[in-house]
């Protein structure tokens, strides 16, 4: 099965370049292209793509607002935001509205392809420092959250994996730690994502933290 990608950018020529790049990959396909925020929301909701590349400055509705709305309708889509800025606080804000990661607009072709593949297979596409800051903020909100605790949704094994994910381990490390194959770890992750209704690794940790599956101490990387 191919990774289904939606492109949302108001600059036709740039979008074309991006499409050529992605269509060269055998495991990816472009399922739609949006030229403004409104179209992005419509296509994102209808097509429920695996990965969305989303520009921020777009006519009608901004990429930030579009991200927020698409995540409501299609929570399992992973959104990678195309941006000119990578300051921590800026990226943090994008993650908080539901993005899974970001790509600089002048990122190299192989970086773009790499990020799409990584986010799809549940790998992290973010600097651990940012992830940790995001989680600290999310845990501050957790206490105020009225959400009913949904403990018991995950199996023991899935819970173990989520904890290791939270510590910043990649799939290979987790496989070694738990004496599993990387394939099995990936399969477990997909299950966790589906049960949580999220699209990527970071979202899974945030959700796990908010709903009490893990606590902030689990997240603090062990040195």
């Amino acid at each position, binding site marked *: 099965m191919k990774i289904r990608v939606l492109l949302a950018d108001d*600059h036709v*020529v*740039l979008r074309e*370049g*991006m499409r*050529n*790049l992605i269509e*060269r990959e055998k495991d990816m396909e472009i399922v739609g292209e949006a030229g403004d925020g409104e179209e992005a929301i419509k296509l994102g909701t209808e097509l429920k793509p695996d990965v969305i590349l989303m520009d*921020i*400055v777009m006519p009608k509705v*901004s990429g*930030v607002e579009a991200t927020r709305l698409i995540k409501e309708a299609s929570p399992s889509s992973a959104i990678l935001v195309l941006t*000119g*800025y990578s*300051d*921590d*606080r*800026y990226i*943090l*804000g*994008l993650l908080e*509205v539901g993005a899974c990661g970001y790509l600089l*607009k*002048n990122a*190299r*072709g*192989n970086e773009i392809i790499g990020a799409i593949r990584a986010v799809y297979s549940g790998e992290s596409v973010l600097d651990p420092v940012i992830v940790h800051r995001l989680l600290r903020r999310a845990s501050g909100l957790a206490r105020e959250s009225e959400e009913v605790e949904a403990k018991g949704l995950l199996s023991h094994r899935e819970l173990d994996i989520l904890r290791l994910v939270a510590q910043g381990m990649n799939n290979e490390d987790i496989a070694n730690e738990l004496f599993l194959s990387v394939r099995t770890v990936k399969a477990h992750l997909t299950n966790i994502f589906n049960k949580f209704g999220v699209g990527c690794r970071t979202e899974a940790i945030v959700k796990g933290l908010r709903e009490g599956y893990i606590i902030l101490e689990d997240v603090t990387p062990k040195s």
Partner: protein
Amino acid sequence: MIKPKFELPEQSYKYLFENANDAMWVQDMKGNIVAANKACEKLTGYTRKELIGTNVEKLLSKEFLDLAREVRRRLLGGESLNQPYEQQLIRKDGVARIMKMVTSLLIIGEEVKNFQHIARDVTEEKQLQENIRLYSQLCIKAQERERGRIALELHDDVAQPLLLLSQRLDMITTRPRTKLSQPFKEKVEELHILANEAIGRLRRCAQDLRPRILDDLGLTAALEWMADDLIKNQGIDARVEVVGTGQNLPDEVQLMLFRIVQEALGNARRHAEASSVWITMEFGDGKVILTVKDNGKGFELPERVGDLASTGKLGLAGMQERAQLIGGQLRLQSEQGKGTTVIVETPI
């Protein structure tokens, strides 16, 4: 008994009274005018004949009659009164004029007999001041619009061909099935790096004019972003606290509050040499209160906020104008060696 060296003859008081450039009049305890000078005729439009025996009520509107009564109460009660104070007078032709006034008691023997007023017409100056204020607010608005427009054009218009250039150069070197010589590849790679450098500079330029984070993520994120910068690049400990639900403020309010904080933080860093700053945004009943506090050198405040510009504190005056633009009020607290606090209160 020591005799005073010089005593003003009564005659000269009368001369001063009559020929003073400021309007002067004396009224009895009931408010009836008993004496008025030439300048008073000019100020009020009434002749002296008409003025004598007239009650001052006739010259004041309701609101300003209350003010006159308050002045009277304070003077008779021995309470403090900031003089000169501003009062409004209705001329004979019905036109309202603004006066700067000084009022004193005339005591004869042990008894308070009369009130004496000295008034100067400041209507034109006030009008001029108000015009300057409106003009400077228009300038601020125009400047922000211009900055916003240029930043967007740089970001959206000028950056696009550069981004395309970068994308194409990257494709040349990575396209499969094209055989390129190593030196040629290196040359293209060099160009790719150059294109990216141009993009980077362009973005910094746009960012300085108007940071994207404010438009994309709102004021709270933008405040924390500025705090991050102080911590990382200036070695200043900066904290942001938001109290209450962060409602969505209108764009213009966010922008003006952002600029005020930006200026306050700039002052804390450049002039006050502060090592810590605290930014607090408090959402209250129909208002938002934003506070920027530092532990820097502090300074001596002018008596009135309106005097900021004339005492060389132009940045602070700009903050004041921006606060007024969104219907807010700016307060400053500062003391030599004890840090500075800037407080903006804005209705929402």
